[in-house]
C-alpha cells in the first residue's frame, strides 16, 4: 500500500520536474516581457509594462528579420513540399530492390550537419553563377534564393517522410478506378490522389515552415542581404538582450499554443461530426440531419473569438494603462532609498569615527599600533566610488551595490552583469 503511494507520489514529482524543465524557461522568459527592468528578469518584480512589445515593433531590424523569415518560410514550404511529394511518389513506384538505397539517399540530408549544407549551397551556386558568367548581384547569388534552396535541401526530406507515411495508406486501386472511369493520369492525380494527400501536405507545410523559421545553421551562410529573424536575434544577443526579445518569444509561444489548441479542437470536432453523422443514419432516411450544438460544431471559431477578445483586451489595457507612473515611482523610491542608505552610512561612519576618537582620547597614545580602518571617515564615505555610481542606478542592483559598497573594489560595478543593461537607460 505504502509503496503504491510512494510510486504514485514519485510519478507526480517526476512529472512536475519534467514539465518544469520543459516549460520553466518559457514561462520565465514570457514573464520577463512584462517586467519593466531593462535586463530580462522576473525578480524583483517592478512594474507591469507592455512597453517591450512596443519596443519590439519599433525595432526595424527585428521586423525586417521576421519579414525575411516569412518570405523564406513560404518559399521553402512551396519548394520542399513539392520536392517531398515527388520523392514520396517516386519511393512508392521505384523497383522494390532499389527502394532501400533510394530511401537512404533521400534521407541523407537530414543526417548532414546544417553548416555543411549551408556552405555547400553557397559554394555550389557560386560556381554555377560563375559558369553562367553572371555577376555578384545575379539572382543565383541572391540571399533569399540561396536560403530557400539551402533550407529546402534537408527540409524536403522531412516533408517526404511525412508524405510517405500517408502515401503508404493509399490504395493504388483508387487511381486505377479513376483511370478506368475515363480520367487522364493528371486528372486522377488532381482529383483523387491530391485530396487524399491533403492532410499530410498541410502537416508537411507546417513542419517545413517551422523548420525554416527556426533554422540558423544553414541560413547563416546563405542569407546575404536578407537576414532572417534567427540571424538578427543572434546578432542582437551579441550586444546584450532586452525584454523586447522576451516579448517576441512570448508572442511566438502564445501563437504556438493557440494553434495547437485550435488543431486539437478541430480534430475533436471532426470526430464528433463523424459520430453525429453515424448516429444520424436513421434520421437521415427521413431527410433530416440533426444540428449539433454550436459549441460542439465549431470550437475553432470559439477559440478564435477568445483570441480576438484576449488580444483586444490586452491591447486596450496596454493603451490605457501606462506604467510610466509606476516606473517613476520605483525610480523615486530607489533614489530615496539610496539617499537614505548614504545618509545611514554617513551617520554610522561619523559615529564610529567619533567613538574611535573618544576611545583614543581615553587610552591616550597607548594603542598607537591599532590600525585605522578608515582614514577618510571624516568625509562620511561620500567619496567611495560605488556610492556615486549607485545614485544613477534605477534597478534592484542598487540595493546590493549600496550594501556591499564597503567591500567593493575600485572597479565599481563593471563586472556586474546588470551594468550592461543599465547602460541603455
Amino acid at each position: 500500500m505504502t509503496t503504491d503511494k510512494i510510486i504514485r507520489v514519485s510519478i507526480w514529482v517526476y512529472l512536475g520536474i519534467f514539465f518544469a524543465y520543459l516549460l520553466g524557461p518559457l514561462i520565465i522568459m514570457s514573464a520577463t516581457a512584462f517586467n519593466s527592468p531593462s535586463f530580462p528578469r522576473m525578480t524583483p518584480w517592478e512594474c507591469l509594462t507592455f512597453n517591450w512589445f512596443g519596443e519590439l515593433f519599433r525595432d526595424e531590424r527585428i521586423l525586417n528579420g521576421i519579414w525575411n523569415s516569412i518570405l523564406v518560410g513560404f518559399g521553402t514550404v512551396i519548394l520542399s513540399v513539392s520536392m517531398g511529394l515527388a520523392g514520396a511518389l517516386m519511393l512508392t513506384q521505384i523497383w522494390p530492390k532499389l527502394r532501400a538505397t533510394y530511401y537512404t539517399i533521400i534521407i541523407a540530408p537530414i543526417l548532414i550537419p546544417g553548416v555543411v549544407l549551408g556552405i555547400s549551397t553557397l559554394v555550389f551556386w557560386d560556381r554555377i553563377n560563375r559558369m553562367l558568367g553572371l555577376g555578384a548581384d545575379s539572382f543565383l547569388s541572391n540571399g533569399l534564393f540561396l536560403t530557400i534552396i539551402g533550407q529546402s535541401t534537408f527540409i524536403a526530406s522531412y516533408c517526404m517522410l511525412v508524405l510517405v507515411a500517408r502515401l503508404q495508406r493509399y490504395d493504388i486501386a483508387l487511381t486505377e478506378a479513376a483511370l478506368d472511369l475515363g480520367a487522364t493520369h493528371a486528372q486522377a492525380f488532381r482529383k483523387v490522389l491530391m485530396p487524399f494527400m491533403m492532410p499530410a501536405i498541410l502537416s508537411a507545410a507546417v513542419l517545413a515552415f517551422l523548420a525554416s523559421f527556426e533554422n540558423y545553421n544553414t541560413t547563416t551562410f546563405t542569407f546575404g542581404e536578407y537576414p532572417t529573424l534567427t540571424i538578427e536575434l543572434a546578432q542582437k544577443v551579441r550586444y546584450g538582450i532586452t525584454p523586447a526579445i522576451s516579448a517576441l518569444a512570448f508572442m511566438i509561444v502564445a501563437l504556438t499554443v493557440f494553434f495547437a489548441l485550435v488543431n486539437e479542437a478541430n480534430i475533436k470536432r471532426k470526430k464528433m461530426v463523424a459520430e453525429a453523422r453515424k448516429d444520424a443514419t436513421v434520421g437521415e432516411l427521413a431527410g433530416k440531419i440533426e444540428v449539433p450544438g454550436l459549441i460542439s460544431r465549431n470550437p475553432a471559431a470559439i477559440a478564435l473569438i477568445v483570441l480576438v477578445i484576449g488580444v483586444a483586451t490586452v491591447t486596450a489595457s496596454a493603451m490605457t494603462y501606462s506604467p510610466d507612473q509606476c516606473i517613476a515611482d520605483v525610480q523615486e523610491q530607489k533614489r530615496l532609498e539610496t539617499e537614505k542608505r548614504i545618509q545611514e552610512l554617513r551617520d554610522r561612519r561619523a559615529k564610529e569615527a567619533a567613538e574611535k576618537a573618544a576611545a583614543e582620547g581615553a587610552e591616550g597614545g597607548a594603542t598607537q599600533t591599532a590600525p585605522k580602518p578608515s582614514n577618510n571617515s571624516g568625509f562620511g564615505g561620500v567619496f567611495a566610488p560605488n556610492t556615486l555610481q549607485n545614485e544613477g542606478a534605477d534597478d534592484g542592483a542598487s540595493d546590493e551595490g549600496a550594501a556591499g559598497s564597503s567591500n567593493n573594489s575600485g572597479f565599481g560595478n563593471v563586472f556586474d552583469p546588470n551594468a550592461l543593461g543599465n547602460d541603455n537607460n
Partner: protein
Amino acid sequence: MSAGVGVDLENLWIRFGDFVAVRDANVHIKGGDFFSFLGPSGCGKTTILRAVSGFLEPSEGNVLIGGNNMKGIGPNKRPTALIFQNLALFPLMKVWENITFSMEIAGASARDRRKRADELLDMIALPGQGDKLPSELSGGQRQRVAIARALCAEPDVLLLDEPLSALDLKLRQHMRTELREIQKRVGITFIYITHDQGEALTMSDDIAVMRAGVIDQIADGKTIYNDPATAFAASFVGENNVFRGKVLEVRGDQALIRTNRSGDLLSRISTANQGKMNVGDDAMMFIRPEALSLAPTGTQGDHFVTAKVNHEEFEGNSFNIFMEGDGGKELKVAIPNHGQSFDDHSGQDMTLEYDVHNAVAVPAGELAAE
C-alpha cells in the same frame, strides 16, 4: 434489350518474367452475356480481367472489344468499367460524387450530375443516400454504389473482380440475384471473376473454368456441372467423388473403368473426351454425392460401390455419409431427408448404387485443391 458488345480473346498470353499467368486463352464472349471466369486464386483470371480493362498489355495475342483491337489503348479510353475487388470507392467523395465521377471527368455540370446520381441511386435502391460518405454505408450498400459508379460511365462491358467476396453469406446470395437483375435491365456484357462456383453457376450464361493460367472448359453452368471436360473442372465445380483407375473397355460413349479399390465401374465418357479415351489410359471417374443412393448391402455389379462408413452428419435437408474413398479422399453420399429415421452405420460396410448416366469419366488429371 440491346445486343451488347462482344469481347474476344485471341491467343492471349500474359507473362510476368518467366512466370506464365495466362497461357493461350481463346474466348469468345457474346454481347449482352453474363460471362464468368471461375478458378481458384492465382489461376490468372484477374490477370485476364486487367488485360481486358487495359491495365495490362498482353505479352502476345489480342483483346477485341466489339471487334476492335484494343492494343495500345489505355484503360481510360476503353468502353469498359471495372468494379474492383475492394470496390475502390473514393473515400473523400460523397456517394453522389463517387457515382458521377465519370461525368465530372467529362465536364458535366453539378446539376446534371446530381440528377443522374439520383436516378442511379433509385435504381440500386439507395434513394436519398447521395450525401453520405462511402464509409458511412454498409458493405452491401457500398457494393451497389460501386456498381452505380461503373454503370454511370455507360460502359459497353462491365468487368467485376470478385466484388462479392467481402460480403457475408446472406448478403452475397442477395447480391447475386440483384447483380443478375441489373445485368438483364441494362443489357450490357458483364464479365465476372470469381472463385466461388455458386456465384458462377447462379449468375452466368457461360463460364470459363481456369486452372493455372489455362482455360479448361468454356460452357454454360449446366454443362460444366454435368459434363465436365477435365478432372479439374469436375472436382472444382460443385462437390464430387473421384474414383481413380484405368480404362478397361470402351463401349461407345461409355467406359468400363478398373478402379483402384472399388472394382470395375461403368461410366459415361464426358462429351469433350469422347473418342479420346483408349483402353489402358489412366482415367478418373466422378459421381456427385446426390447421385449416389443406398442399395442392399453386398450387391455386386458395375454400378455398385461398397465401402466402409467413416462417419455421418446431419445437414438438415440431407444426411451426409462419409465413407472410405480413393487416394485419401472420402466418398461422400447425400441422402435427402424425407423425415425417415436414420441409423448410424459408422464402421459398417455399405453398398451404394448409381445411374451410369450420372457418372462421368475423364482422362486422369490434376484435381482442385480442397
